[in-house]
């Protein structure tokens, strides 16, 4: 076999390999969503974040508008300090409410943003005033049980 046929076969091999890599980057992974570093970061504080994880989506009206950048605990107030990176093409008003929601009954948790009516927009580094913590199933159940327990003696009288 002469040189040019080796070159052709190897070239074809490399081309197929590169195509497979492109397939993995674009179709299997999502290179388009891999844009950490762009956009601006806003801060939100929650009493309880439940099972929220770094890189969880930030959604508004169900549309992904950013990602959770980092999660930490404020040592003074014992609140969870969540940094949200919002894509640069979205703007939210100053009185936006952030809440931690769950997709489906047992799905992953995400941060939902609900824009308010303030004409001033959030800028990088701003802190969200109003937040709503994650729904903790155990707390809900115990609340339910306590309210049931409180009801029963009233009925017995």
């Amino acid at each position: 076999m002469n040189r040019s046929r080796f070159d052709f076969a190897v070239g074809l091999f490399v081309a197929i390999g590169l195509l497979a890599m492109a397939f993995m980057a674009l179709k299997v992974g999502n290179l388009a969503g891999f844009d950490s570093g762009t956009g601006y970061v806003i801060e939100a504080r929650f009493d309880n974040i439940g099972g929220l994880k770094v890189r969880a989506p930030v959604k508004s009206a169900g549309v992904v508008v950013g990602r959770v950048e980092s999660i930490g605990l404020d040592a003074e107030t014992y609140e969870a300090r969540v940094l949200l990176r919002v894509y640069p093409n979205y703007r939210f008003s100053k009185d936006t409410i952030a809440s931690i929601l769950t997709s489906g009954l047992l799905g992953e948790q995400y941060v939902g943003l609900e824009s308010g009516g303030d004409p001033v927009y959030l800028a990088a580094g701003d802190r969200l005033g109003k937040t709503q913590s994650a729904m903790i199933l155990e707390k809900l159940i115990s609340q339910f049980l306590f309210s049931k327990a409180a009801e029963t003696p009233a009925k017995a009288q």
Partner: protein
Amino acid sequence: MRASFVQLISALGHFFTSRIDRLGLAARFAGALLVSLSIALGRLPLMFREVYFSGVRSLSIVAVSGLFVGMVLAVQGYEVLQRYGSAESLGVIVALSLVRELGPVVTALLFAGRASSAVTAEIGLMRATEQLAAMDMMAVDPMSRVVAPRFLAAIFSMPFLAAIFSTAGVIGAWIIGVKLIGIDDGAFWSQMQANVDVRIDVLNGLLKSIVFGTAVGLISVFEGYFAAPTAEGIATATTRTVVISSLSVLLLDLLLTVMMFRGLS
């Protein structure tokens, strides 16, 4: 009684010293190989010739294996996932297992069996028929002319083969999951894209395959270069290549996985 005790202890000692000796030989060989790489990199056509024999000729077995592994993963994954009502996550499970683990590892195992054993036999026979000695006589360095191109070809081919394996696997899972079982096409891909990270999963997988390529390539040329110049010696050397390559790929995979994916979520 006493003599046999001494024999036992020295047999134990020999067991370890011979292995350490071999390891030292391999390390010195790797050092010499590293020196000859600079010359070999200046003559890339030699490497591409070996890429043809090792990489291109392994293409079909890797692609077909990937397809079947993906299909099996889809069938088994669906069986479990549908019990929890989350059959749409099939794409995620298949893609993550392929891209992170099965792609690089199974490709390296197949490569060790399909290509590296042939490289060992080839170099071993060159040694046995004194072709290497003849090259040396002609002032042609067999390290940079014969050994280094084959070593480089393994490193060069492995990431492409692993990518092809994973891609074929995902397509196989898609055929089973979407076309035959009837999972929603959009959910299959969107869940996969939402959960497979290009940097953490895809790039780390390719990095793994480059490390495996280095290990498998080094073992195959080393075993061939130091094969006993007899028919039996070459047979032993090819067997050792496959066994040692497979074991070191699996061991390296554990180490790399711990380094790459521990502490993630």
